[in-house]
């Protein structure tokens, strides 16, 4: 049944490019997104509570990929509803082009999440680069072309790095040439440590580029700020997670091979650099979408640090990924509402959102507080778990550094993101309310984050636990 998630998007993508019908292009997205999410739920929860390796050779849905599939499914629903408005004033050529690329992107992400094979995973990550580049380029403006160029160029080099890493990994495994994860896990203790280190380093840099870890994050602010808003949400919520999944699985191999301290150090360095970068540029940037992008970098840094800490922090990593995806998607989707009203992404051109579009403003503010990890959000829980683990590891210096940097992030983000809500609105702003589909997805995302932050059902906990078993057992 998982084939549906791979072939069907491709099929629909081809149909949209062949039919060139605007109605089809616009409405195929919400319909398919809902169907896809239903399929994902069926796939994940019909096999609940046991590890499922799948009968097929290359693809499988286990609980870990299931979690990320669910996230992707939800985000896809949200952004496809927003796509209706994003495509409203476009001609049919643009619409079908957009739909084609978005569906290819979704196909690539689905396939990447489900693949059991490192090489395949690499291929699909590259595929997200290509389709993503076209989506970033969609606005056809000067800046969007520049962003798309940087995205494709930097990410291509990134995935080239990842490929070098894969070659080294295969060189490291003395026994088998297979790049299946379970094979590699199985062979890990026998692997040549030095080559494994090389392989891990290069793969980490490569996949880290896609994930947005500093110092190879540089494409991320440009791409996230220039893409259409539903695409920004998908990039930040789905793509980064996919790369993170790859890194988690690779880290698992190093753990089994007994060089966990090596991989931890790399993750630590990249994580701290990411949070540092975010802390620096959150103060500096004048563009609210770029600010959100830097916040993504910060959160990716935290994910990387969770992976560094290991143990209980792995749980934190999964719920942090979930919480970050939903919250960031909510923020990025809301930037659409803001942008369509103010026609600007500059913080200083936008003011008084609370009086022009109260609903968006409320969503925006609540999501902002969720993203800076204020209680009662899921991110608060995950950061607490991370810090708890760090305290147990007695890495107090790191905790102090993180506190300082996170406080800087909060300060800068609050300044930029809340500023657009207050003050007097410019006079010529249209105050009519958008259709409800522009608000409902964000409301659902944010309330899910808050509810899970307050009360995490036992079934949810055991689902995450079983997802963790994939990379711990």
């Amino acid at each position: 049944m998982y084939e549906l998630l791979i072939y069907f998007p491709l099929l629909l993508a081809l149909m949209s490019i062949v039919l060139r019908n605007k109605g089809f292009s616009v409405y195929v997205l919400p319909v398919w997104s809902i169907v896809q999410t239903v399929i994902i739920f069926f796939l994940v929860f019909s096999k609940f509570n046991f590890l499922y390796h799948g009968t097929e050779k290359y693809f499988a849905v286990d609980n870990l990929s299931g979690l990320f599939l669910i996230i992707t499914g939800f985000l896809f629903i949200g952004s496809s509803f927003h796509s209706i408005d994003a495509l409203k004033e476009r001609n049919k050529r643009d619409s079908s082009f957009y739909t084609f690329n978005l569906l290819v992107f979704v196909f690539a992400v689905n396939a990447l999440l489900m693949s059991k094979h490192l090489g395949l995973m690499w291929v699909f990550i590259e595929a997200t680069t290509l389709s993503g580049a076209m989506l970033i380029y969609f606005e056809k403006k000067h800046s969007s072309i520049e962003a798309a160029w940087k995205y494709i160029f930097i990410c291509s080099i990134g995935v080239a790095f990842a490929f070098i890493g894969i070659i080294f990994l295969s060189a490291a495994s003395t026994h088998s040439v297979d790049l299946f994860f379970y094979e590699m896990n199985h062979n890990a203790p026998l692997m040549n440590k030095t080559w494994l280190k090389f392989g891990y380093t290069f793969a980490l840099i490569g996949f880290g580029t896609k994930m947005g870890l500093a110092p190879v994050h540089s494409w991320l602010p440009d791409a996230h700020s220039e893409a259409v808003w539903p695409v920004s949400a998908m990039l930040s919520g789905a793509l980064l997670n996919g790369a993170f999944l790859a890194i988690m699985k690779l880290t698992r191999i190093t753990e089994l091979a007994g060089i966990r301290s090596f991989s931890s150090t790399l993750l630590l360095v990249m994580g701290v650099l990411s949070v540092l970068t975010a802390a620096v540029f959150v103060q500096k940037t004048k563009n609210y979408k770029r600010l959100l992008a830097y916040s993504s970098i910060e959160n990716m840094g935290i994910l990387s640090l969770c992976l560094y800490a290991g143990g209980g922090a792995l749980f934190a990593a999964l719920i942090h990924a979930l919480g970050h995806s939903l919250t960031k998607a909510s923020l990025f989707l809301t930037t659409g509402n803001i942008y369509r009203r103010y026609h600007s992404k500059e913080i200083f051109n936008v003011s008084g959102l609370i009086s022009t579009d109260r609903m968006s403003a409320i969503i925006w503010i609540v999501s902002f507080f969720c993203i800076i990890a204020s209680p009662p959000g899921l991110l608060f829980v995950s950061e607490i778990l991370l810090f708890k683990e760090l305290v147990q590891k007695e890495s107090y210096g790191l905790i102090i550094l993180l506190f300082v940097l996170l406080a800087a992030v909060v300060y800068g983000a609050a300044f930029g993101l809340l500023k657009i809500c207050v003050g007097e609105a410019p006079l010529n702003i249209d105050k009519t309310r958008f259709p409800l589909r522009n608000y409902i997805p964000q409301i659902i995302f944010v309330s899910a984050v808050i509810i899970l932050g307050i009360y995490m059902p036992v079934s949810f906990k055991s689902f995450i636990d079983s997802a963790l078993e994939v990379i711990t057992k």
Partner: protein
Amino acid sequence: MSAIAAVLIGVSLLYISTTARLESYIKMLMLQGILLFMVAAGNAHDISFTSIIIIGVETILFKSIMIPLFLLKTIRKNQIKSDVESYFSGFTSLFIVTAILTLGFLTAYLSASSNAVLEPLYFGISISAMLTGFFIIATRKKLITHIMGYMILENGIFLLSLSAAKEMPFIVNLGVSMDIFIGVFLAGIFINRIKTNFDQHDIDDISRLKD
């Protein structure tokens, strides 16, 4: 024979570093594609026929025909001046690439002495090719040369995968080459777009998005 081809790839790197004409770059890319096929075919003791076909498609069709032709077309269409603009002089570039080659062979020597996982000669040349690719990307001003640098990097990686002496699953190989091809294709399209949209003399000035 394959060893000679590999060494020739190294020589082509030296040539690339000194030449100042884009056409020479493209010719060298074509040559490298053919040489790579020769390297791969020379090692084909235990490779199946399908793999040979795939490698052939990859190297001959993509690397030495389609991509160079496409790049040539891009250059012509956008009326890109045919000289390579570099931050470094030809002599300095040559010197650095020589150093890179030396480093590559040093690596090969070291890896051969310690560990026999990789074929030392290919490994050294692939390292050199990758580093040269980065060198080209970092020091040449034109966007189109960045793509060429990326192609050199990719050739190096291909050589590296050959040096691993282990077969990649063919699906992966095919996917890889498809991806690279489409990636370069897209990059070329973007160069077109940049030319048409930016409406300015220098298409290489794309550093407006910054903080």
